[in-house]
């Protein structure tokens, strides 16, 4: 399945885009997606940390991703 990943902040610079599409096996977890993204974009591993959001909620490693989900990378937040 193809998943579109939204980028914010520093991740837009790492992607060079506001979103990217990646191919993932069906029922892939957030952990698998994170590993996949770190392979394609080694700069992600240099961040203090990054999380994934699925349908605008923080995902944990076991969260299963389906093709209809809205997925985003959340680099370290710095609001306020």
């Amino acid at each position, binding site marked *: 399945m193809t998943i579109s990943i939204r980028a914010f902040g520093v991740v837009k610079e790492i992607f060079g885009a506001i979103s990217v599409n990646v191919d993932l096996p069906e029922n892939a977890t957030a952990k698998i997606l994170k590993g996949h993204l770190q392979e394609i974009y080694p700069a992600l591993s240099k961040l*203090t940390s990054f999380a994934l959001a699925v349908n605008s*909620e923080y995902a944990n490693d076991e969260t299963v991703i389906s093709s209809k989900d809205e997925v985003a990378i959340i*680099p370290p*937040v*710095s*609001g*306020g």
Partner: protein
Amino acid sequence: MVVKRHCVNYDIKISSDNLNVASCIEWVSAPGCGGIDVFVGTVRSETKGKKVVRLEFEAYEAMAVKEMEKIAQIAIAKFSVHKVLIHHRTGVLDVGDIPVIIAVSAAHRGAAFDACRYAIDTLKETVPIWKREVFEDGAVWVAAHP
């Protein structure tokens, strides 16, 4: 651009327009409340000795309002306060501008202080908003790198 969520006892807003402190305080004010604590963030002129030219704030709005709503709901439940307001700016801000206002009303002041501090501390940890500090010789996304 404005994204809002509100309810009888909380008011959440992410906006590219100026924030207004007086109207925030008026909103949380209620006859049964004896104290209001307000936190007003302001853009500092320098960071670690380096002159700041401006800040740029970006938000994942749909998620940010949900996280801000959770903060308000937890603050109300945990500290027994009356009303919680959280407003955050996006876009380009100059030194002295206001990126964030948090206002909390409560019957007693201790609860208002505790809930307000909980809200700003948690916002800075969980709400997907990002700040880019622009200096005279470059720019950084705050906290992005160790």
